[in-house]
């Protein structure tokens, strides 16, 4: 399976925060032949160990969960009202196809108040949260038999191959970066790398970077790089917030970034002729780096990002070249950062 196929299978898997088994099992299976050990912890994080020369322990984290919906109520006509798990722009939910994960998987569509029943002024506004419902095409009794309050709902979207290297789909945030870790692991099987590497597909990032915290505790790394998505350039997105697709991974500069790791990443990228972009980020509370950095007695961290357009929609768009270059960057870092570098991290 090449990286594009892996991206497709991970993206199309259902794995809302707290219910990540399907994509987690997929990635565990993919990593197993390449790693020295693959295990799952109590929260569902998948942790692969790739032994290096023992110069230090590097944790690489990318989250496997996705945002989704949850059944809140079945109304008198069998329509399902829902809550959200993670942050949605409700405007992106109109006329989406979904799967309700009840006793059976039910196909459904998200509806809202019909436009011809809205006043002209209502039609000029976005739908409000409480106007949405899910139609599964069944009578109330049947819906109640198959669906319970609390059941998970996922958005249906097959990956769309756009022109060139570009792809669109759901949950590229952050499974595209799990693919990037896989690209890194593939490279590590071909070289004698200095650092021992722990690759972690973390759970529950979208509800507060929770899986990363416990995986950092158990791995107890000397240093860590969180890998997540950043915003792609797009009309209406400020130039300092949007990054070019196909122009390489983005290295973050902010309070979650250890200055020495930042410099090392730039150094190895330049040496290996890996294109990269730099992001000045003042707050990184939205990524796994946020919780890994303060695990146990503190971990020297960095954040590498993948430019992604339309984040948290079902048509998130990326360039596969950025995944490949990002994988190469992470592998180069594990190859070249040595004991001296790791031991020097507290001195800055």
């Amino acid at each position, binding site marked *: 399976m090449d990286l594009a196929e892996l991206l497709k299978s991970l993206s199309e898997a259902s794995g809302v925060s707290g219910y990540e088994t399907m994509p987690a099992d997929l990635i565990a299976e993919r990593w197993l032949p390449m790693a020295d050990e693959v295990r799952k912890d109590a929260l569902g994080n998948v942790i692969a160990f790739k032994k290096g020369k023992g110069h230090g322990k590097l944790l690489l984290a990318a989250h496997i969960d996705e945002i989704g919906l949850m059944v809140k109520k079945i109304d008198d006509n069998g329509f399902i009202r829902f809550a959200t798990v993670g942050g949605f722009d409700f*405007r992106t939910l109109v006329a989406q196809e979904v799967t309700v994960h009840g006793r059976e998987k039910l196909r459904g*569509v998200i509806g809202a108040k019909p436009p011809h029943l809205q006043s002209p002024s209502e039609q000029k506004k976005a739908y409000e949260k409480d106007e949405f419902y899910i139609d599964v095409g069944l009578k109330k009794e049947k819906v109640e038999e198959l669906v319970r309050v609390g059941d998970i709902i996922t958005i249906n979207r097959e990956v769309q191959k756009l022109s060139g290297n570009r792809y669109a789909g759901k949950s590229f945030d952050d499974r595209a970066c799990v693919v990037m870790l896989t690209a890194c692991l593939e490279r590590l099987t071909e070289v004698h790398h200095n650092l021992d590497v722990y690759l972690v597909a973390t759970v529950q990032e979208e509800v507060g970077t929770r899986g990363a915290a416990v995986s950092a505790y158990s791995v107890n790394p000397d240093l860590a790089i969180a890998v997540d998505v950043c915003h792609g350039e797009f009309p209406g997105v400020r130039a300092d917030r949007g990054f070019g697709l196909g122009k390489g991974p983005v290295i973050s500069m902010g309070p979650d970034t250890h200055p020495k790791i930042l410099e090392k990443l730039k150094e190895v990228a330049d040496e290996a002729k890996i294109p990269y972009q730099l992001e000045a980020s003042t707050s990184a509370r939205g990524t796994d780096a946020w919780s890994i950095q303060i695990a146990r007695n503190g971990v020297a961290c960095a954040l590498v990002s993948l430019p992604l357009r339309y984040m948290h929609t079902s048509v998130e768009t990326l360039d596969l070249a950025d995944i490949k270059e990002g994988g190469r960057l992470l592998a180069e870092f594990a190859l070249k950062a040595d004991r001296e570098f790791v031991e020097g991290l507290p001195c800055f």
Partner: protein
Amino acid sequence: MFLKELSEARGVSSREHEVRDLIREYITPHVDEVFNDSLGNLYGVKGKDKPGPKVMLAAHMDEVGLMITTIEKNGLLRFQPVGGIDPRVLVSKPVYIGKDKVVGVIGAKAIHLQRPEERTQVLGFDDLYIDIGAVDDDSAKKLVKPGDVATFATSFGEMGDLVVGKAFDDRAGCTALVELTKLEFNCPVYFVFTVQEEVGLRGAGPAAYRVGPDVCLVLEGTTASDVAGTDEEGYSTTVGAGPAVSVMDRSVIAHPKVVGRLFRLAEEHGVPIQNKRTITGGTDAGAISLSREGVPTAPIAVPCRYIHSPVTVMSKSDLEHMIKLVELFVHDIADKGVDFE
């Protein structure tokens, strides 16, 4: 039935050829004559020389869609709607563009980058782009050009007791009409698949002029709003309660005697039927009824939820009942003639 094939076929108003080619293939074995006119309307004729009134049955082949208007320097495409599309249904959907079926997506600025008040505003046609993955305008121009049209990229499927797909308005009517060509009637029947309904009932008028029918039924997909948050009087039509007859809409007041006959036949044969409860919208019946010296006409339709969106939902039983009722109607015309004056 060819509902899946016809739903997935692409035919934005004035670009109906893919749908037309499919229908021509389906009906050719069952009719005496097949031809199309210069607008693109497709005709199947059966029993031309039989005695009895000339019956016209019509369904439109076109669907609402998007037309590419400009290619921006950054490779993103600007577009405008063809037919009535609420822009609120477009965000976060894939589309297929042009004859080569170039894949594009309609995205939106990430929620993380929005101010809270932005989330209450509609993303309109001026705010949206289609992204085909092109790195700049030069690479985009190799794949698409202004004037190309796009359709929703929806696959047909079962959903509970219902079916989901795009363009049931009016591929439901087209599917019914294709099925009806397989039956034998004792009067001349013209099966007409029209073009450009969604941009103003453009094809149906010339088609009715050419045929010159004594009576016409227009087979449609129509609005159903039997959904959460709607009171019963706002339902318009109800999915699963049988085909719906529009007594009046913005385009036509259906001929009372045609409507009367449909209801009588439905009652006599135990076929479910309902009245459409709203008077919005229009159908080819508007253009056909005013053709030449006037044609007694009525629209009959399969109720469709989320009409003109990427995910229309309808009931196959409504479609089957519509076919049955139209069959009964044509037999009744052949047996008893017309009495519409």
